[in-house]
């Protein structure tokens, strides 16, 4: 450790806002993913100016920097891969402005996603992106990863709701991009920075759109005796251009694990359920619910159940949002994948995942955002069994490769981070990387900010990087 830097940081922020003892740093060496990376120092800036000064100090001492929100990320985005100074935004957690009339909020990056919705609720407004970790993840982290969630099917992911950012560049320079109104002149820098996984700038202030709460909501639970029927239903709902606000799928094996734990009301003997939500005008919701029920029935749904009240609705969603925690009870370790396929390919993709699982002798569960083709297969394994661990990695890589083969993408909402950087050549050519690298270098020329993310470290099509771990990760989307 560099004692000179430590003293300077303590002087700037106060001793309580600088961590350096190994036992303190331990907490910050992991996130919601299976990766690890320990920083040399963890600091808690309180202002944008603090962030700028910290960045400059780190540069003087030639240390890399990495930003971090709540650490719920699932791809290693908020880990200090090569050590350095970690900036944790926990103290920058104020909602700076609620502009009800114009439906905007200005927040600091450490504001927890759900807290913004709570603050806006009395005015009939809310923040639409709702990752499963919404009660702990921060909006700064949502911006870095371009986070999704169940209801982004109808309302769009984080980038569709951000209009303006204040940033600190790796040079320490403070800049603003975008505009509060959302129609800034020139290149769409906001669109570039959202989802750049903290590799080009640190975000210190965010202006977001607030959405109006719908007049009516109906939540449906469609119960199926076969996974194929459930998958065909999703493909058909999409093909008929019905847009529910959310369309989530849990396969039978997964829902039984969830039901044991949460008691959400999922039928234990079913092969799959769809959790569907329609929102809007009372008249729109009635028509959409009827149309969805018709499609479910056409695909042999055993039953389509309508949540009778908010309590039943909340319970169904609790089952969905806490599912990954429930799965932690089943095996020593699990690995939640994140891949995207065209929605028309959903039935065949689920069959392929089953085949891959059978091949390796794994149970692979599926609980995911079916409506936008965003798969989250879960591989359960025992990391102490080396062969099983190797097989888990191979199965995961095969599934992601399959997503790419059918025209999909490596990640729908978790980000590339450390996890999938070596898989990037499956989708991108040398020319693509060259341009992405030039864009990266335009802002982060020395790779001092969040090094070792997104870009592959080695040439050629590598593998998924995961390391075994033994605790469930409740933050999974």
């Amino acid at each position: 450790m560099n004692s000179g830097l430590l003293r300077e940081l303590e002087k700037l922020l106060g001793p309580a806002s600088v961590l350096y003892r190994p036992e303190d740093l331990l907490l910050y060496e992991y996130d919601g993913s299976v990766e690890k990376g320990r920083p040399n120092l963890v600091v808690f800036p309180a202002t944008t100016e603090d962030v700028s000064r910290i960045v400059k100090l780190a540069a003087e001492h030639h240390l890399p920097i990495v930003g971090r929100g709540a650490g719920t990320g699932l791809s290693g985005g908020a880990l200090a891969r090569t050590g350095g100074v970690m900036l944790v935004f926990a103290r920058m957690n104020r909602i700076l402005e609620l502009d009800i009339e114009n439906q905007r909020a200005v927040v600091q990056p450490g504001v927890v996603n759900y807290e913004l919705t709570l603050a806006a609720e009395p005015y009939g407004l809310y923040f639409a992106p709702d990752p499963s970790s919404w009660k702990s993840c921060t909006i700064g982290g949502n911006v870095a990863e371009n986070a999704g969630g169940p209801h982004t099917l109808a309302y769009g992911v984080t980038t569709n709701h951000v209009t303006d950012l204040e940033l600190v560049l790796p040079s320490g320079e403070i800049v603003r991009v975008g505009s509060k109104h959302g129609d800034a002149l020139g290149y769409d820098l906001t669109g570039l920075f959202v989802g750049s996984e903290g590799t080009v700038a640190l975000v210190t202030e965010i202006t977001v759109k607030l959405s109006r709460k719908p007049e009516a909501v109906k939540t449906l639970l469609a119960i199926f005796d076969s996974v194929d029927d459930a998958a065909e239903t999703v493909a058909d709902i999409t093909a008929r251009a019905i847009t529910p606000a959310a369309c989530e799928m849990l396969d039978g094996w997964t829902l039984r694990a969830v039901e044991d734990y949460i008691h959400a009301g999922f039928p234990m003997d079913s092969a799959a359920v769809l959790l569907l939500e329609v929102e809007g005008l009372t008249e729109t919701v009635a028509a959409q619910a009827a149309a969805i029920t018709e499609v479910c029935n056409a695909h042999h749904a055993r039953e389509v159940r309508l949540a009778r009240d908010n309590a039943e609705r909340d319970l169904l969603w609790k089952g969905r949002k806490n599912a990954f925690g429930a799965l932690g009870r089943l095996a020593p370790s699990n690995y939640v994948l994140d891949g995207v396929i065209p929605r028309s390919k959903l039935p065949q993709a689920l069959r392929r995942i089953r085949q891959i699982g059978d091949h390796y002798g794994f149970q692979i569960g599926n609980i995911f955002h079916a409506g936008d083709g965003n798969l989250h297969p879960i591989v359960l394994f025992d990391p102490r069994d080396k062969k099983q661990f190797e097989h888990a990695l191979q199965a995961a890589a095969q599934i992601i490769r399959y997503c790419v083969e059918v025209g999909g993408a490596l990640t729908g909402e978790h980000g590339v981070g450390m996890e999938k950087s070596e898989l990037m050549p499956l989708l991108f050519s040398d020319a693509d990387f060259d341009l992405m690298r030039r864009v990266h270098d335009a802002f982060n020329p020395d790779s001092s900010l969040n090094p070792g993310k997104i870009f592959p470290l080695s040439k050629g099509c590598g593998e998924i990087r995961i390391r075994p771990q033994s605790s469930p990760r409740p933050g999974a989307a």
Partner: protein
Amino acid sequence: MTKASTSLVPALETTLGASRVVSDPAACANYAVDEIIPSVVVKPTSPEEAAEIVRFAALENLALIPSGARTKLRIGMPPSRYDIALDMTAINQIAHYDPGDLTLSAGAGMPIAKLNATLLENRQFLPLLVPWYSRSTIGGAIASGIDSPLRQFYGTARDFLIGAEFIDGAGKLCKSGGRVVKNVTGYDLHKLLIGSLGTLAVITRLNFRTFPAPIAGSRGFVASFPNAEGALALRRAIAQSPLTPLTFDILSPGLAQIFSEKIPATPETPVFSGEARNANQYTLPPIGDWFQPREWQLCAAFAGTPEVLDRYARDLTRLASESRATSTTILDDTTRPSVWGRLRETLSMLLESSPATAIFKISVLPTQFAALFATLHQFADLAGLPHALVARAGGTLYFALLPASANDETSTRLAQVASQIFQSVSAAGGESSLLFAPPTLKTRGNMRNPSRSDLPLMHRLKSAFDPQNIFAPGRL
């Protein structure tokens, strides 16, 4: 003509074949950007051919501007150099369409109207209903960054462009995004192409998500008001209601008058087959007497089941009456296209309404509307310039100055009002730019975007994409 122009044509002909290279001055003049004429027009038939041309331009340090149907080349500043016009209209194939996934990939030169005709066979459409609709290409619509009234419901292109392929300044084919509706793999470089005016890359292919076409049942609504206050009161009431109309625009009396008196010169093509129009009907029908040309109007469109349509009609009429509308009308399939088509073609109609039209794009928060409307009208009236305004009710507005003649004196008055507008919008926390203007006005004084603090970052991006500055130099 540039120093390279003598060798330029034979070199390009050798590379591409003589049939793809045009150097006839009259033909080149058709590709002029703000009266600056290129030395040669090249029409590649594949992305690879286009990339070869870019590599040639990079090698010879020639400035190149890609174009589609050339309907919106007047947007932006005049180029500082312009050697090669790259006509992208032959790269116009649908590369991929998965109706079951509602995703689509097509060549940059694909005409939007033709694309929508294909999508409508599956009851889908792309909400890229930009002005000059019947001629515009998807590449031009994205590069120009122009919006449409449908942004109220569907958002702007950044909300439904999911990926792109393009050629960088070194002549390499690159891509970003993908063909799926949810994707965080790599940087969203395709978003940067929106509104880039060809300054970053040559777009070869665009991937979109498509949407169910609102054809099963759709209606329009028009309310008229003696003053802006009434229209703004209704705007506020709708914004705070559970209604989510497809379009939602406020028109000044000046624009209402143009709508009442004129027909867009751009040939009309039916957008939705559900609209009761013959395919061979090439002009919009006149607007009905329910449109009050001397008043402010609020126009909206909505779609859905008969129950939903009833609800909209009922609620909008009630809210309008509470806002003291002088009249309200519900438009059906026979009357709606006359307004909807004009709203879509507003910018083209404004350009046709004066020999020296200047159109400002102004973005503010809706709470600034009332003060801004008054200020804009005051500036124009004091300068004795006729004017027209349309406000997308979410916050973006277009304000046109429509002088009766084009001369130096008009130009002086336009420049004066322009600087007043830039100042007052900026003071109100908004942003304004001169979207369309006579070239003489653009080059006169500082008509460039009022300075943004992130301009240096944009220059860094421009250098990352196009290190030699060969793409549309000086246009942004």
